[in-house]
């Protein structure tokens, strides 16, 4: 094997391509989500047809992003998959436990405001990030 062979690493090339595809679909999904959230109010004054079309586009792009994510996961090697699956499982657990407790706080009048889904998503993102870093450190 030569050093030049390494530059054409099949695994790395495939992984880079999958990462790029996932990044692109995620970017498009975020853009369509922003359009669906703000355009009805600021651009077309809650026109129902346009809003429904935007939502359908957002859902279609979201589905394509999920497919890209699946391809990305399948393209990873077994250790990378384990790190990712462990992080996802931990995030799901934290999301479920904290999400339900957070919802309960309002029901039992311990907080005076309505729990927001965005707060839960922030917690899940931070948990996932932390779990990924911990996973990579574990096998370093």
């Amino acid at each position, binding site marked *: *094997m030569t050093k030049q062979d390494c530059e054409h690493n*099949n*695994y*790395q090339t495939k992984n880079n391509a999958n990462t790029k595809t996932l990044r692109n679909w995620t970017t498009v999904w975020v853009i369509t989500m922003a359009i669906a959230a703000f355009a009805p109010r600021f651009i077309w004054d809650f026109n129902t047809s346009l809003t429904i079309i935007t939502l359908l586009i957002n859902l279609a792009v979201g589905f394509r992003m999920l497919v890209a994510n699946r391809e990305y996961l399948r393209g990873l090697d077994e*250790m*990378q998959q384990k790190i990712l699956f462990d992080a996802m499982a931990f995030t799901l657990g934290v999301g479920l436990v904290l999400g339900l407790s957070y919802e309960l706080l309002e029901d039992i009048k311990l907080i005076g405001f309505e729990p927001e889904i965005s707060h839960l998503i922030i917690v899940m993102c931070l948990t996932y990030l932390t779990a990924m870093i911990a996973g990579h450190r*574990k*096998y370093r």
Partner: protein
Amino acid sequence: MKNRLKVLRAERDWTQAQLAEALEVSRQTINAIEKGKFDPSLPLAFKAARLFNLTIEDIFHDEVETL
């Protein structure tokens, strides 16, 4: 699980990146296997054995002592 991956790789003067390429995994995975931090699956162990033209037992050893 202990293994001789690092020794076998060094004997052939391969880098971790080159071995990773041959086994179609990431360099980080090779590093973790060499350090004994990650145990490869059976298909990956067979792949390594084929690459080095050895048996799995020649490369990987169970750390539990047999009587």
